[in-house]
């Protein structure tokens, strides 16, 4: 079934650890996005990609990095996690063409850094 998957769903780690949040989609979409959703539920765009080997920073400055080596995969990495990185991270994908703003979201990865 075509969908967008995020792992892990929940992660609790200590300060200084390196973490990677995985995002994969089986919908054949070109565009992929990472949003950070804070406790007040605001959504902030932190990274996006419009195809393989293309990545752009979003509106919110983030210490994370992303890569897009394969169309279906868009992992987000934090080299050294800090408590300020505690948040929910949402991955989304979308298609080029008419409905450019129609995004499909994953279930989210809730990260807690102690």
């Amino acid at each position: 079934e075509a969908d967008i998957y995020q792992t892990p769903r929940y992660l609790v780690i200590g300060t200084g650890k390196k973490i990677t949040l995985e995002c994969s989609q089986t919908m054949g979409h070109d565009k992929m996005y990472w949003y950070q959703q804070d406790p007040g539920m605001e959504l902030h765009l932190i990274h996006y990609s419009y195809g393989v080997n293309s990545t752009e920073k979003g509106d919110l400055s983030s210490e994370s990095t992303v890569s897009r080596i394969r169309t279906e995969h868009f992992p987000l990495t934090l080299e050294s996690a800090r408590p300020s990185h505690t948040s929910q991270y949402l991955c989304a994908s979308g298609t080029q063409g008419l409905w450019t703003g129609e995004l499909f979201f994953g279930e989210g990865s809730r990260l807690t850094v102690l």
Partner: protein
Amino acid sequence: AQRVTQPEKLLSVFKGAPVELKCNYSYSGSPELFWYVQYSRQRLQLLLRHISRESIKGFTADLNKGETSFHLKKPFAQEEDSAMYYCALSNSGGYQKVTFGTGTKLQVIP
């Protein structure tokens, strides 16, 4: 730069009352505007898009370019409408960045 503003963090209405969730945007080009909804413990999902001029679950939204607004309306609120609502803007350029507003929590009181 593109920006979306939702002035209300929380909107409480009684069941059967009309609902209007406000959204204003700033964008120099021709924007595409959307409303997304997130029900409790569910994924964020598209509710409606301005280009379709559709009514979904009784909700409608009209793009007013003069006032740069895209308010979401429903004549009679239902309890199942309680959720978090986000207004979103997609630019018309090649990069197609999608920016969300800060969200409005709609609480429908029985």
